C-alpha cells in the first residue's frame, strides 16, 4: 500500500503520483483529497485506489481497468466515458455519473444526481452498470443506448421518490431496474415497463451481490424487490420524425 497525501497537490500532480505509485504497488491510498478533479483519468492498470476525502468532478473519467473506492461522497461526472474497471462510492454521487460509460461498473451507496447514466452504451460483452443504493434525480438514463442502471431505494424517507421525472427520456437501448414504484408521470416518452424475467435477475445478481459486499447489505433482502423494469420502446426513438 502506498499512501499519497493529496493536500496541496493539484490534479495533475495527484495523477502523476498515482502513476508512479502504480508501478510499485497494486494498492494506493489517496488521503486528504479535497475537490481535485480528474482523479484516475484514463488509468489502465489493475490498481486499487482508495480515496479519503472528496474527489472533484470527472473522477475515473476514461477509466480503463482500475478499481477506485471513495470513502465519502463524489461530485459530478463520475466515470465519464469509462471503459472498464470499478468505482465504489460510499456516499452520494453528483450529476451525470456514468456519462457515455461503455464498460465497467459504478456502485453508489447513497443518492445520485441528475442525468445519471446519460448516453451509456454497450458493445458486445462490454456492458456498463450503475447501481444506486437509494434514489436518483431527474432524467435518469437519458438517451441511454445500452448497459444497466439499477436504483435500489434502500433508504427512502417518507414522501421520497426513488427516481425523478423524465426517467429514460430518449432511451434507445439498455435497461433500468427500479426497486420500487415509478409513476407514469415520471417516465420519458421513449420507455415502457416490462415484466421482470429470470434473465433480468441473472443480470442483476452479480451486480447486487457486489453491491452488498461493498456496502454490507443483505442480498436476499434486496433481491426481493419488487423491481420495475424499464426498457426503450425501440432502438430508433426518433426514426419517424423526418421526411425522407
Amino acid at each position, binding site marked *: 500500500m502506498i499512501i499519497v497525501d493529496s493536500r496541496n497537490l493539484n490534479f495533475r500532480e495527484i*495523477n502523476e503520483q498515482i502513476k508512479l505509485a502504480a508501478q510499485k504497488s497494486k494498492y494506493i491510498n489517496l488521503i486528504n483529497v479535497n475537490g481535485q478533479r480528474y482523479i484516475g*483519468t484514463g488509468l489502465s492498470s489493475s490498481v486499487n485506489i482508495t480515496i479519503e476525502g472528496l474527489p472533484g468532478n470527472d473522477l475515473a473519467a476514461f477509466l480503463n481497468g482500475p478499481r477506485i473506492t471513495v470513502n465519502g461522497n463524489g461530485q459530478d461526472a463520475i466515470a465519464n466515458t469509462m471503459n472498464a474497471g470499478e468505482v465504489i462510492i460510499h456516499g452520494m454521487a453528483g450529476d451525470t455519473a456514468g456519462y457515455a460509460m461503455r464498460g465497467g461498473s459504478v456502485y453508489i451507496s447513497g443518492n445520485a444526481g441528475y442525468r445519471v447514466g446519460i448516453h451509456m452504451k454497450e458493445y458486445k460483452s462490454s456492458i456498463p452498470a450503475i447501481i444506486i443504493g437509494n434514489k436518483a434525480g431527474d432524467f435518469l438514463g437519458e438517451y441511454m443506448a445500452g448497459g444497466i442502471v439499477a436504483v435500489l431505494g434502500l433508504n427512502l424517507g417518507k414522501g421520497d421518490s426513488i427516481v425523478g421525472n423524465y426517467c429514460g427520456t430518449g432511451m434507445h437501448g439498455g435497461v433500468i431496474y427500479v426497486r420500487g414504484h415509478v409513476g407514469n408521470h415520471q417516465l420519458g416518452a421513449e420507455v415502457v415497463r416490462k415484466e421482470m424475467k429470470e434473465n433480468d435477475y441473472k443480470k442483476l445478481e452479480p451486480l447486487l451481490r457486489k453491491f452488498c459486499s461493498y456496502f454490507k447489505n443483505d442480498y436476499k433482502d434486496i433481491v426481493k424487490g419488487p423491481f420495475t423494469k424499464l426498457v426503450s420502446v425501440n432502438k430508433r426513438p426518433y426514426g419517424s420524425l423526418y421526411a425522407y
Partner: protein
Amino acid sequence: MLSFLQPEFLIQRDKDRCNSCGLCVKQCSFEVHQHDKVKGTVLSDETKCICCHRCVTMCPTRALSVRKNTLAFRRNSNWTVKAVREIYKQAETGGILLSGMGNPEDYPIYWDRIVINASQVTNPPIDPLREPMELKTFLGRKPERVDIDANGNLQVKLPPQLELEAPILFSAMSFGSISFNACKALAMAAAQLGIYYNAGEGGLHKDLYNYSRNTIAQVASGRFGINIEYLNACSAVEIKMGQGAKPGIGGHLPGEKVNEEISKTRMIPVGSDALSPAPHHDIYSIEDLKQLIYLLRETTGYAKPIAVKVAAVNNISSIASGIVRAGADIIVIDGFRGGTGAAPTRIRDNVGIPIEMAVASVDTRLKNEGIRSQVSIIASGSMRNSADIIKAIALGADAVYIATGALIALGCHVCQKCYTGKCSWGIATQNPDLVKRLNPDIGSKRLINLITAWINEIKEFLGGMGINSIDSLRGNRDMLRGIGLNQKELDILGIKAAGE
C-alpha cells in the same frame, strides 16, 4: 395518398444512342432506371431522380442527360415552386424536412464581394515560381513571449502545436456519415500533403490508425468511439459544440447505417441509432467547457492541442472569447454555409451567420482583448476555392477546414441527399456495392491534386501581394477591399471599400 409532387428532374434518353445495355439500371442507387422486359428497352421513373449524374457519367454511349423539370406553376414571387413543393412533402409525410450539404439559399456570399490587393510599382510582386513561399502553419496556443539563449535555442516550452504544410485541413466527417473508402482517401491525402483530417464523431476505424498522426479526434456529445487509445493516437482533439449546418441541433445516425464495421468503430450494437444530443450534458457554461478541455489535456498528457468547434451564431465573438478563456488552443468557427450529412432543412437554411462576418468579428474581439495569440482560429463553411481561403486568412483565420470541396473532388455532385445513405458515388453511404465505387487511391490522388492546385494558387496570390509568407497575410485586412457592401458590413469585416 395521391402525391402532388411532380418529378424535379427529367431524364432525357437519346433513343438513337441507347442500346439498352442496362448499365444505368445497375448504376442508379435510387432505382430510377428499370428494364422494360416486354419491349427490351430501359425506362426511367423520374420521380426518384435526385440529379446525381451517376447514370449520365457512366452511360457508355452518352445517351443520357438530366434536365430540370420546368413544369410551370403560375408565377408567384412569394409562393415559389420550392415553397409549394415543401408543403406538399410535409403534408404527405408529416415529417421534419431533411437535407444534406450546406445552406444553398440565396443569401449574400461575402467572399464574392471582397477583392484582393496586389502590388504595383512599389513593393514589387514576388514570383512564387522562382522564390520561396512559406505556407507552413502552426496551430495552437502561442507563448506570451519568447526568450532565446546565446546559442539561439528557444528558452520557452512551446504549448503543443499542429504543424501543417499549408493552412488547410479536412473538416470533421465521421465514418458513418461517409464511407470507409472516403475516410481512407481523406486520411491518405492528409498524410501525403502534410496536413490533417478530422475523423468526426464516431471513433477511428482500426485500419486508419496508420494515419493517426494526421488525424484529429473529435469528442462530441454522443462520445461515440472515444477511448484513451483513440485520443492518444491522434494529433489533436476537437470538442464539437456545434456545427454551421445545424447550430443547436444534435446528430442522428440512423440505425440502418450502423453495420458491423460502424458498430465496431462507434462501439455500439449493429442497427442501433447513434444519437448525439444537442448539448454536451456536462457542459452548461464556460467553466464546464474548461473542465472538459482539461480532462482531455489530462487524458492526453498535455501533448496535444485541444480545439473547440462552434457554429457561427449571433454572439460568436463573445463565445469565442469565452472559449479562449476556457483554455482551448484552437477555435473552429463553422459558418452557416457549412455542410452536413443530414440536417433539418429549416435549421440549415435559417440558423447561423456567414463565416466571413464571424471570423472577422472574432479576430477583432480577441485582438481587442489582447488574447488573440492564445488561440488559433480555423474558419470553415464554406471554402470553395483558394481565393476564399486567402480572404478568410486575411480576415483573421489561421487556417481553414474544407469538407464539401474535398467531397466534390471525390465525386460528390452536391445532390444534397447524403441522409438517404444511397450516395451513388460511394461517399455518403455504407452500402458495400456503392462504397466500392470510390477507390481510395484514386480518391486521395484527386484530393492531393486539388489541394496542390490550391496551394499553388495561394502562393500566386501571396506573391502578387508582395508577401512571401502566409503569416504576413494573417489578419492583414488591408489586403482586402469590399465591393457593394454597406458601411456596417465593411466595419464588421474590418475592411475598406474598393477605391478607399
